């Protein structure tokens, strides 16, 4: 049988930013299969030049509407590294809670609003409202709680307002912290229901040997700073991030591509899980077990599962952190910052993987040079290679254009790409 398949998805939906999928199969042979990023370049790194250190985090937060808290934190961490600032205990916890708020918010959005419709055969979460109102309500509850948590610890869900160089801008009111903690407790029930929903997902049986890169946990599941680790055994300190990412420019994409030991690698929830599963909260580990996620998984669709596992882990960790914060009581939230010439870099695990910021400052604390390496940038090449492999897998089956298109879309969506972010 002669098989010709064409997939030409212009501006993939239910993802952040603009990307295209392009597949040509002639006579069962994959002629071309790739992932293209067509987002407009914004040149944040160039815009950063000359900016005062106080505005760097505010500007870079605008790189991405989903992981703005992560960008702000990476920027602040970078700046603090350059100036040698050590932030107070309370601020560290508040920041991590802000980070967790973002992780929960982003994962629930992606998993339940953007990816779930695929597995239920729906075009979006909107019909979910009538077809499965309980799922819609559950998704809303989880995301709503995550948003309120971000509001409380970061000042605002999108584009945080209380994360400052030197610490944080305010101590969340005690009553509100207690309330969020209690709600987090209750949300574990919702997560159990979510687990049941995810268990029913028909995950395509597709694997491709991949190198996974994440921060390296020492005692905890890692989120902010630390060493860099790959499943292929690369282990480097944070500041050697360039050797870990190796960005390069290609023709058909406005985003750069990246590679490490192989021609591409993956970052994100699955990478973190693969590298650091032993630090997971036992209940999160149980969930991994329940949905059939085992380390090291090379099935990119398992990103979705890893996100669920992380949601459970982060919920538990947040409860613990809030309790610690309440015990600490009021006190210093920020230290004075003396800008000085220097260089700093910071790595933060944002929902989609490791985010690196790297600045050089002049004497007045103005940015002279900046570099940001975004998780999706690191994933792009891997996505493209996955699509190629996917095309090859389906080239000689009785798949239709629509089916291949859908499964390719699902694959890209599984990475939860933040496309505009990758072209920054």
């Amino acid at each position, binding site marked *: 049988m002669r098989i010709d398949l064409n997939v030409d998805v212009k501006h993939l*939906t239910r993802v952040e930013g603009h990307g295209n999928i392009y597949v040509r199969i002639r006579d069962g042979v994959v002629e071309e299969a790739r992932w293209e990023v067509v987002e407009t370049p914004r040149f944040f790194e160039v815009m950063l030049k000359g900016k005062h250190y106080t505005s760097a985090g505010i500007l870079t937060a605008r790189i991405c509407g989903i992981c703005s808290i992560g960008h702000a934190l990476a920027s602040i961490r970078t700046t603090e590294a350059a100036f040698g600032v050590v932030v107070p205990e309370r601020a560290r916890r508040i920041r991590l809670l802000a980070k967790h708020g973002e992780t929960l918010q982003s994962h629930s959005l992606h998993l339940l609003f953007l990816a779930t419709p695929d597995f239920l055969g729906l075009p*979006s979460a909107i019909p979910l409202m009538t077809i499965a109102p309980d799922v819609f309500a559950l998704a809303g509850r989880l995301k709503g709680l995550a948003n309120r948590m971000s509001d409380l610890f970061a000042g605002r869900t999108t584009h945080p307002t209380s994360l*400052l160089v030197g610490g*944080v*801008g305010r101590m969340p009111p005690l009553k509100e912290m207690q309330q969020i903690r209690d709600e987090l407790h209750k949300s574990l029930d919702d997560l159990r229901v979510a687990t049941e929903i995810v268990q029913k997902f028909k995950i395509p049986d597709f694997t491709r040997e991949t190198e996974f890169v994440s921060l390296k946990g020492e005692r905890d599941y890692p989120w902010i700073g630390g060493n860099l680790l790959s499943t292929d055994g690369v282990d480097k300190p944070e500041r050697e991030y360039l050797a870990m990412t190796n960005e390069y420019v290609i023709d058909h994409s406005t985003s750069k591509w990246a590679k490490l030991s192989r021609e591409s690698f993956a970052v994100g929830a699955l990478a973190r899980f693969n590298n650091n599963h032993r630090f997971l909260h036992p209940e999160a580990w149980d969930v991994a077990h329940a949905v059939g996620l085992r380390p090291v998984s090379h099935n990119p669709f398992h990103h979705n599962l890893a996100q669920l596992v992380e949601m459970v882990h982060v919920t538990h960790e947040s409860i613990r952190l809030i309790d610690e914060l309440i015990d600490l009581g009021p006190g210093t939230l920020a230290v004075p910052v003396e800008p000085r010439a220097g260089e700093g870099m910071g790595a933060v695990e944002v929902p989609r993987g490791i985010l690196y910021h790297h600045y050089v400052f002049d004497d007045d604390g103005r940015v002279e040079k900046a570099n940001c390496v975004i998780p999706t940038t690191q994933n792009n090449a891997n996505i493209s290679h996955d699509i190629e492999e996917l095309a090859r897998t389906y080239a000689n089956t009785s798949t239709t254009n629509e089916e291949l298109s859908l499964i390719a*879309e699902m694959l890209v969506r599984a990475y939860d790409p933040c496309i505009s972010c990758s072209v920054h």
Partner: protein
Amino acid sequence: MRYLGIEPVKPRVGIFDFSGCEGCQLQLLNKEESLGAFLSALEIVHFREGSSEASDDYDIAFIDGCVTREDEVVRLKKIRSIAKLVVAMGSCASFGGVLRHRNYIDLDAANREVYGDKPKETGKTRAIHEVVKVDVTIPGCPVSKTQVERIVQHLVLGVPFHDVVYPVCVECKQKFNTCMFEKGTLCLGPITRGGCGAPCPTGGLGCWGCRGATVDPNLKEFKDLALKRGFSEAEIDERLAFFGGFEGITCASI
């Protein structure tokens, strides 16, 4: 609210993204307590970030992001020709937002710096109203969902919407905050349009003016008081330029 015999209309809505971080669109999926009602009040026929369905038949276009490339101009003009009402959503759409900074850098050099010998197509940043006519503007970086909801209510009920005209200080004071200036931080609150709920002074950042100038701002006094408190002209100018909402206003021009 049908008691007057006025039937709320369910407008067909398209949501479109241009250059930006898409944070504003994302706000549309926030505020879960009223998300269902929000989505039911509208017939969303085009929303790439949220849905795979797409249609070219809509009454209202919500636009986020600004215009930086020629293909965007074409797309925007097509949207304008279809939509009866165009809503610019967010600071990027309203004034260019942070991407306005691109207009102060050498784009070719930037292109070379980032992409080396494979430069990508790009151009100056333009707000939506600089390309097509805009009917309603909702500034904010990001927009506040509460405000978007309110505008949607007005559209659904067919009554005009008036944005608040007081500066951020009013809402900041209502949050019991100590003024940022008292803490030694610059804040554009006194000259920026309120309506956001003052999240930035409340968080400790100070207002960066993302909602643009308020009605009849007292720029002269603002400049004087900021200088008197030790902030430099450069700092004030940088702040005023940050979100593009004070385009053309600098210490020298005040």
